[in-house]
């Protein structure tokens, strides 16, 4: 079991989300950084989709009642155990009774704590993640706070050599010397513009508006949350009729009348009525999940074929990482 000693800024149990219920108004939700969740799960020998703790910005503190195999992925942050820094992107054996303490995020916004066996919560509509706005799923339908106890699923006996290493080590944790290269789209600078596909109402921006959309810098505002990033940059105007509400998805860039775009994330409402001026490529989801207030973003046009190709390429790279991890796990 995991005992929460401090909930931090915003920590919640999240899995791969609950798709399939949007017709009932239920948001897909789930871990915003799905790549971090998947790789974290692979590192501890779990299936892709098992639930983990998503920590935003800072402050979570947990203790372990049993030895546990964990992995930290996602944003880069100060995480310590008995005053020693705990490495990211590799499997880590934590000794029973140890306390894991998360400080401030250094780069990015969200850290994932994956545990072998996964965090087990009652399944609600096919998902174990927390719907924070509607207060169901996950742990008691809310963010984690001090005093919460989380159940860990059955742990197969993987990484036996690493576990044996922990027994010999005086420290509260042990980890191998290797790690998966922290997830980055290879060769791309971190401030590379986000690839944006044309949205159904993009033509309403006019030529000048479209140029502004693709050249301006937008600031991520403090009102941003798991539902959406609120952006501020050059005020855009869309010429449009009132849209009847229609389905929206992760990455949809809406333009409300005030001209400041809203970029939808995982906890988006299932439908929306604002004009959709663009949709970010699926491959950008990880970067969107790791943006925080004060960051700035730019957009660059991207076509349907290119978006599909980039996603396929990344999936191939991820599969390679998974294979290598499996081999290393056997060697300990």
């Amino acid at each position, binding site marked *: 079991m995991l005992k929460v000693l401090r909930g931090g800024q915003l920590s919640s149990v999240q899995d791969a989300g609950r798709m399939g219920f949007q*017709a009932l108004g239920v948001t897909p939700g789930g871990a915003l950084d799905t790549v971090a969740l998947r790789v974290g799960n692979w590192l501890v020998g779990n299936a892709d989709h098992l639930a983990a703790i998503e920590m935003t910005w800072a402050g979570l503190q947990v203790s372990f009642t049993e030895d546990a195999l964990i992995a930290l992925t996602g944003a880069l942050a100060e995480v310590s155990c008995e005053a020693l820094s705990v490495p990211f992107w590799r499997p880590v054996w934590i000794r029973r009774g140890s306390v894991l303490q998360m400080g401030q995020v250094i780069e990015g916004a969200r850290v994932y704590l994956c545990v072998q066996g996964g965090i087990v919560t009652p399944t609600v*509509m096919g998902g174990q993640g927390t719907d924070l706005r509607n207060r169901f799923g996950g742990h008691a339908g809310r963010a984690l706070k001090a005093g919460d106890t989380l159940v860990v699923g059955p742990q197969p006996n993987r990484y036996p050599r690493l576990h044996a290493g922990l027994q010999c080590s005086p420290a509260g944790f042990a980890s191998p010397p290797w790690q998966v290269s922290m997830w980055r789209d290879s060769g791309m600078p971190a401030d590379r513009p986000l690839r944006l596909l044309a949205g159904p109402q993009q033509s309403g921006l006019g030529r000048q508006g479209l140029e502004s959309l693709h050249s301006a810098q937008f600031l991520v505002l403090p009102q941003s949350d798991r539902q959406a990033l609120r952006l501020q940059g050059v005020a855009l105007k869309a010429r449009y009729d009132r849209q009847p509400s229609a*389905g929206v998805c992760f990455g949809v860039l809406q333009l409300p009348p005030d001209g400041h775009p809203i970029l939808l994330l995982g906890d988006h409402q299932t439908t929306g009525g604002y004009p959709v001026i663009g949709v970010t490529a699926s491959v950008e989801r990880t970067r969107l999940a790791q943006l925080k207030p004060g960051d700035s973003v730019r957009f660059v046009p991207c076509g349907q074929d290119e978006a599909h190709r980039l996603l396929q390429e990344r999936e191939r790279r991820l599969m390679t990482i998974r294979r290598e991890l499996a081999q290393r796990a056997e060697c300990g």
Partner: protein
Amino acid sequence: MRRIGPLGDSAVLVEFERDAAAAPTVQGFCAALRARGWPFMLDLVPAFRSVCIHYDPLRLDGSGWTPATWFAELETLSSAPETGSGACLHRLPICYETGFGLDLDAVAQQLGATVETLIEQHLAAVYTVAMIGFAPGFPYLEGLPGRLRLPRRATPRSRVPAGSVAIAEDLCGIYPVQLPGGWHVLGRTPVRLFDVHRHSPSLLQAGDRVQFERIDGRQFESFGPC
């Protein structure tokens, strides 16, 4: 059909004619999609005149379709004739008494009608669930009599009680839980619209029809907590 177009690289929006009675077409199209059961199709969201189909682009690529050939198939499906509707008619109890119909007096005044006429007109209509949205289980009901049409409240309420039946523009809606909202509250239903622990969490589905049945405060209380 008006337009079929991508919504990014993992969803597609199929929009239907503006002037047609869209609900049966939208429902027919959804039924046709479900019958296909493509494994890469993750979710369907019917709305007023559209259906949003969420899909997994990686699984689509591995299934023998390309986005282009699949979109063409969707086009064929969306113009197929409607099949018989399997929609249910729900009779929902509603209490218009003081403390429930928070805006009844104000609405009657704005419309220049008596409260009783207003209630009669609201009760007489048979509504169609055009879509569920805004919050889990919140139905947007079409079929509000034209005489009851009003813009939203100038100042939205920060808390509209669960079960509130409210109107705005040409729609009627029901708040499944306490939520902020700017619609005019005419009454309240004791029926629980959304419950995550039910086999079918949402009582209403897009395409269903709804008729309200008047109850008094005592009957409302006998339903137990909403």
